[in-house]
């Protein structure tokens, strides 16, 4: 039985890659991809612990999260579309008008 720490490290790695993606990328679409990574990292954790505790809830919940990710992407792309319309560019660093 593979010790659970490996899975956790794997999910932490995937999570940090996602975070790095958000922090550096300037294209809104790539933002969404990075967010996907974050969610999948969480899924790895869920399944790992479900297997670890022998409890099905974890896996079902990861299913739930996958669906949620899909919903999130739908909305995300909608927003990116509007972003493009208003700022003619999906560059995140352009849309800086929402501030004091």
């Amino acid at each position, binding site marked *: 039985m593979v010790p659970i720490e490996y899975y956790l490290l794997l999910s932490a790695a995937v999570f940090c890659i996602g*975070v790095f993606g*958000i*922090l*550096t990328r*300037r294209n809104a679409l790539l*933002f969404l991809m990075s967010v996907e990574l974050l969610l999948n990292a969480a899924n790895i954790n869920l399944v790992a612990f479900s297997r670890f505790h022998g409890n099905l809830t974890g896996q079902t919940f990861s299913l739930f999260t996958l669906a949620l990710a899909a919903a999130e992407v739908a909305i995300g792309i909608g927003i990116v579309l509007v972003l493009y319309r208003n700022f003619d560019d999906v560059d*995140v*660093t352009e*849309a*800086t*008008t*929402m*501030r*004091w």
Partner: protein
Amino acid sequence: MAALPFELAPAIAALPFVSFLIALLVGAFAPRLLPKGGAIPGILATAGSLLLSIWAFVAVSGSADGMYHEYITWVAGAGEATLDLHFGILLDPLSTMMLIIVSLVALLVHVFSLGYMNDEGETGLPRYYAGLGLFTASMLSFVFANNLLMAFMFFELVGLCSWLLIGFWFREEGPPSAAKKAFLVTRFGDYFFLVGVVGVLATFGTSMFVGSENMEAFPHIAEQVLAGEGAVEVTTFLGFEPQAWFAVLGLLILGGVVGKSAQFPLHTWLPDAMEGPTPVSALIHAATMVAAGVYLVARIYGFYALLPQVLAFIAFVGGFTALFAATMGVVKKEIKQVLAYSTISQYGYMMLGLGAGGYVAASFHLLTHAFFKALLFLGAGSVIIAMHHNENMWDMGGLKEKMPVTYYAFLSGSLALAGIVPFSGFWSKDEVLYEAFVHGLNSPLLLGAYAMGLLAVFFTGFYTFRMVFLTFHGEPRTDTARDPHGVGWNVKFPLAVLGILAAVTGLVNMVPVQKLLGVEGIDFLHQWLDAGPEVLSAHHYSTLTHDFAHYTAGTIGSADLTVLLSAGVSLGLALAGAGAAWLLYDVPEPVRHTDRLGRIKTVLFNNYYQDEFQVWLAQGVTLPVAKAADKFDQGVIDGVVNGASSVSLFGGSRIKRVQTGVVSNYAFLLTTGLIVLLVAFGIMGGWF
């Protein structure tokens, strides 16, 4: 029957107050209804209170214990230790005498005002007569007050009325500022007086002048405490011994007296008070209000007699003021200014008398001075009417033929003021000087005061007759002086009455005659002031000054010799002064001899720069300090408050920089925040 006048005693003050209300209310709403602009109610009221005063005078002399004392509780202190505050009436020889003086002079001034104000077509008469009414009411209430607190309250009300009346012609610049100055200077004195009153109430638990069934008089308590059989113990403050603490209280009350009676440091307001109408000067600044201070000291003389240092101080201030003011009176141009300085000087004599243990002498001089000084002011008033309100003596001259009644009345007043034998001034001033001289032989300070007083006699004689000769004698120097504007009966009648009084009142207490010729029983005033209750009587005071202030009467040679000597010296000096004035000024074309004094004249003319000094104190010191305080307040304290707000504004503007608008920055902040939190919890929770 004797009780009736005492029930009516409050009416003495109530009548003028009613006339005040009538003048004020009817004047404000229905001026036409008011006869003669409010003069008639005023005259009736003062006449009424004069009659009641005389009736009270007679009743007091007839009554058993020689006084009538009735009081009501103004504020009852709850709990047992607290003191109650009272209003009350005390009719005894001294107060009834003063009541008569005040109401008589007030009546005559009201009559005179008909001529001075009504006939001259003044506007705002209801306000004038309301002011006079309120003044007379408060002065009479002050006179028959039975405790120090009530005395203080009416002392201040009288100050208010003098402010109202000095500033009567408020449309010009002069009178309002003179009124303000008068009120402020007397208020400064009243500050000390109030501290004294509170001190007396705190120390003795009562401020009564005379004891009653459940309350002792504070002078009597003081006497018992100092005499040692202190049945009643008093609380002294600031760690003083009773003797020292009583001296402090005496000096504090003296502050008010010096302010109101225009003695040395606080005298500058009186000459400026001449801005008010002349009847006001006659009533307030000659006879009554200025006398309030001296009357107050006489009223609680039982307390002052116990304090030798304070008595010496009073004598010295009195003597110095007498000389100081007399010298200034010599160089003045306006007739009212001369009289103003003469008033200050004469009150200096009364203080000298009181300080030297001459209680009867001072009261006598208070009595005579009230009459002849009121006479002189009214005389000056009639001269001013004649000269169409020009007060400069150098524009007058030769009015003797045109205004005989005024001239002879004025002459009688001047003779009294200078202290020439048959006239009242001589008897009272001589007795004051005699007392000072006699007691002075045993205490050098009194002798110094006596010397100053004596020297002042010469100057008094000089400036009085300089005034008379410049105004009435010689050739008329201006055409208004040639045919002066006539004056009616309402001017001449008061002058005549006061003229006779100025000549006659001396007979009331011719002590030197009694001593030299051995004619017993003609010192009526002395006996009168002895007729009152034991604790307020004149001989009791002399025993007190003897026991506590160690005043003993010394003599040169035999007793008769000293009387003759002092009377002769003072008469001689007065005659010398008059003669000098006669020599210099009784010429057809008098010349300004005082110019020969050169620089001394400028100093004297500018009243030793006292005025400038006090104005500088107000303008040059207090105002800049106030402005500096205001600048400090706006700058520093308000600055701190505004500073606090600007700090928060500045902080806000810096912190809002964090909100750059770029999403990545926010994500970055989120992540770092998460890391920091994780690490913190890790350390706290011991994960690592």
